[in-house]
């Protein structure tokens, strides 16, 4: 599937900001399942420095410094990405989850990822007995790993309510767990916390999801948003994605931008501004499918709810 993506972030400051530094993760990753055909990053006003590098997890990240007084800042990333539908293994054919736990994941230094990096607590992911107990219901002794993951994914989808007003990015997972509400980031962090509490390696994936308009309506440009899900390490199969917000295993409508231990490793745009006062922030994401004959559209599963704020 071919997509034209744009991710537009605009800050407005009531008084001029003197300096701002931003760190962005906006360039979609290259992988066997995803090819990046074009990418451009535009910053206004013109930055004094815009330096791109590859971060510790292999993601592209840019450091952007604006050093002239400015009342607003816009960062726009445009890209063209081809996504190839992954072939996930048959859940029942994956190894027992205990094997993944007791196996080599803490010592493995596999070339396609270091699962050991994703076994331990990180800023937004704190393992705790309550989450291990919750997760254990999906992982009965001997249960094949992916069966457990699919089950856990479904339970998060059913037990938790999507509610953009319930949480902020600093809401701890424990509180999300108690409130049973949140957005895609919260559900991804929750899934990761559950898996890590069991001793399984899980990472956070930041990206986009193509939205499908309700029947008879036209797709609205800019109505999309950033999205997040998680990925679990399965010995013999590598990383397998799961999207608890939509209760599915991502296919070709999920576009991967970056991955890390949690949101803080890969937040699309983070910054520190000197001066400026309370800023206003607007984020617009557009995921446009480019029809290519012959169109082979994968079966869509669940359409996300309509009003999603910045994140699903």
């Amino acid at each position, binding site marked *: 599937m071919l997509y034209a993506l744009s991710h537009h972030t605009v800050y407005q400051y009531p008084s001029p900001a003197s300096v701002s530094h931003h*760190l962005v993760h906006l360039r979609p990753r290259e992988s066997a399942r995803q090819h990046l055909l074009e990418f451009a990053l535009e910053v206004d006003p013109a930055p004094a420095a815009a330096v791109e590098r590859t971060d*510790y997890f292999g993601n592209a990240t840019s450091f952007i*410094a604006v050093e002239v007084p400015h009342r607003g800042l816009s960062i726009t990333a445009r890209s063209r990405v081809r996504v190839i539908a992954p072939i996930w293994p048959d859940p029942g054919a994956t190894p027992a989850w205990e094997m993944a736990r007791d196996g080599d994941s*803490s010592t493995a230094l596999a070339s396609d990822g270091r699962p050991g990096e994703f076994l*331990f607590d990180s800023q937004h992911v704190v393992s705790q*007995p309550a989450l291990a107990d919750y997760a254990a219901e999906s992982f009965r002794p001997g249960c094949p790993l992916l069966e457990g993951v699919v089950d856990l994914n479904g339970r998060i989808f059913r037990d938790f309510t999507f509610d953009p007003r319930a949480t902020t990015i600093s809401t701890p997972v424990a509180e999300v767990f108690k409130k049973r509400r949140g957005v895609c980031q919260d559900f991804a962090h929750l899934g990761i916390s559950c898996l890590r509490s069991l001793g399984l390696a899980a990472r956070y994936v930041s990206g986009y999801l193509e939205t499908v308009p309700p029947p008879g309506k036209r797709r609205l440009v800019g109505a999309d948003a950033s999205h997040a899900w998680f990925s679990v390490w399965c010995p013999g199969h590598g990383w397998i994605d799961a999207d608890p917000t939509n209760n599915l295993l991502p296919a070709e409508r999920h576009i991967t931008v970056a991955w890390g231990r949690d949101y803080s490793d890969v937040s699309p*745009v*983070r910054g*520190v501004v000197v001066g400026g006062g309370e800023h206003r922030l607007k984020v617009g994401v557009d995921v446009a499918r480019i029809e290519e004959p012959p169109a082979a559209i994968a079966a869509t599963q669940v359409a996300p709810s309509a009003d999603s704020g910045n994140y699903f």
Partner: protein
Amino acid sequence: MPLATEPRPALMDSGFASYGPSADVFDEAKDGSGLVRPHWEEFGQAIERLGAQGLAERRENAWQLLREHGVTFNVYADGRSAERTWELDMLPLLISAREWAQLEPGLIQRTRLLNLVLADLYGPQRLLAEGLLPPALLHANPGFLRACHGVRPPHDRFLSLHAVDLTRAPDGQWWVLADRTQAPSGVGYALENRTILSRVLADEFRESNVQRLASFFIASKAGLRAMAPWTNSPQVVLMTPGPLSETYFEHAYLARHLGYPLVEGGDLTVRDRRVFMKTLEGLQPVDIIIRRVDDVFCDPLELRADSFLGVPGLVEAARAGHVVISNALGSGAVEAPALLAFLPALARHLLGEELRIPNVATWWCGQPHERAYALANLHSLVIKHGFVGGSADPLFGAALAGADLAEVAARIRAEPHMFLGQERVALSTAPVWTGDHLEPRPLILRCFVCATSDGYAVMPGGLTRVSAAPDSPVVSSKYGGGSKDTWVLSDGPVEELTLTAGAALPERLERSNAQVPSRVIETFFWLGRYAERLESTTRLLRTALARLAGEGTAIEEAELVAITRTLVGLQSLPEKFWKRASHREITAELRDLVFNAERAGGVRALIRRVSYLTAGVRDRLSGDTWRILNHLQTEFPAAPGHSTAGAVVSPLHRLIFQLAALTGMEMENMTRGQAWRFLEIGRRIERASNLLATIRAVLAVDPDGAVALTPLLEYTDSTMSYRRRYFARPELPTTLDFLLAQDSNPRALAFQFKSLRRHLGDLPALGEAHPEQWHFAEMDALLAGSDFQRLAMAARESEGRRLDDLLQELLAGCRLLSDQLTAHYFTHVLAQAS
């Protein structure tokens, strides 16, 4: 010969001869059979000669110096912050030249090793691939900062300063307990201990051939300079979290000793991936940052976003190679206690050497066999967190009951990577002078290794810490206990070398302390304002108390009423005192205003404010100035038990003397830089404001000047000069003229304006707009054009409003001037993260 048969009084004996350490542990001074170790013999005799009396005198002397130097350690152990005075024992730890010669290469080997480990972890990570380090040791380690991976410091030098905690086993073998690589503290305390002990035990110090510390600091400075090869005059700064930090005393002390500006994160800014210091003269480039801020707090952009202590963009500046940060960001990764278990193998692999100083045996529970061993031997091991960031204190298995042991075991099983078991080490002991006898106390010796221009050097000395009680297993400044100076003896006479002497060497090329962060200047401005406010308040309260302590004449009574009401008008006293109150009530209220720290605007509250500001610029005050400011707080007494006016007023007299000494220091001992200028500006603005406010309040109480002028002149210390000038009892027109218009009177408004005119003219021009200059010129003209004698006469003919309006306009003008200066020179808009 009756004298010879009389036993010497026990009090006079220092007790060194009878000092009897336990035979189960190693004692530094005496061996297992109670014999004095050879290198302690001479010093032991010196202690004997001093006797109990001599030691007590010297301890008193040392305490006084410690208080004067303001040597403190902020303690958070009890959940509340408290500044604790540093404890220094009268007996140093002695280490023989021969023994030191063995330790030294072992310490350097360790620094080299940890530096190589860091270079690998933040680079190719071959140690993981080759199986020398379990990956989980890195991945679970909160000290490993992913953002800093790939950032290579010049010459791959991650560690410029490394601290190693040592102790000695019963067989005399030195063991490493822990490494400090993040931002090791103690160098400054070690230096301060030396400064004090070498003074109070001057003869003993001289006779003992003690190796000097100066060479270490000279080598360390050269090592830092070599880190910034792009310039031959690097600007070095020492970055501190600020006065609330545990070891702030040390940061300020070192900054001053080494001659580097002390900065906080807010004083620095990153432009074009380079680091600059904000000064009154604009942005000044910074080449090297000695950081005392833990690395995760150093950059809110790439590290902890909630940090207010850092500099946004600092990691990127380091990545670009434009600034050197010492120790490198991420260096904390190798102070993980779990690493100890792997160092012997790493030494063989990376250096081809055996570890010269062994580690305490450590079993990291992240490995199955080691975990099994630790779980099976919990009852005899010490259980610790495996990494930095673990806030819990070590658990001693032997001290735990069965149920507690089971709980610890369960926690280890749940998160094995986070724990380790360590062999329980019997710490060696050394004699500590308790005040009346010598007692063996467990000790830990912290040694320091610094990078030099071509290698590493060990401080010939160190920081010895002793436990608070003879049987305490924990030695930590957090829990009290004391410290000792550490004397590394030399076989021959010692060469004198001081840092100042070293400073004359041609290779010393850092730019001097001329660069001052603007925050420091702002602190001086407020120090000027608050020191003056303290003086003004003290003088005003004294005029009231003097009348309460007087003979109670009718004039005194009338004046007391006028002063009390003036204080109500100034909102220093509550409304109810406008009505007549008894002497007892007024005295009680004034006593509260003087001694109650919680009373805003009160004397003790202002003293605290001044102390707080002083703490923030401690590194920039001369020793004498610091002592005066320190005395303000330490010598201000507790509230007297009885509330007589006389008891309340006497500390105020003393306070006035101390404040006068402070202004004397300002005038005679401070360099005429921007810090001095803003201190002066702050003082002048404050004095002008207080004078105007007080005169207004007096006129509101006593419009004709019938009773309140004598106290007003007393408040302004102008009684005598007024009398000499006018040979008459105070009249309103002449008094006002004298206090407002006479620019020869240092207490008069015109004098303050004259000073301000000069200082404002000397300020650096920042940009073109100078609103404060324009504004001040208007005020100046207003004052010059006012005839207070005439206005005061007119006031009697009920035109008092015009006088009051004028005073009010001048007062508002002073406040505006302060705001404008703050906005123009200091406004630090807080950085906010999104």
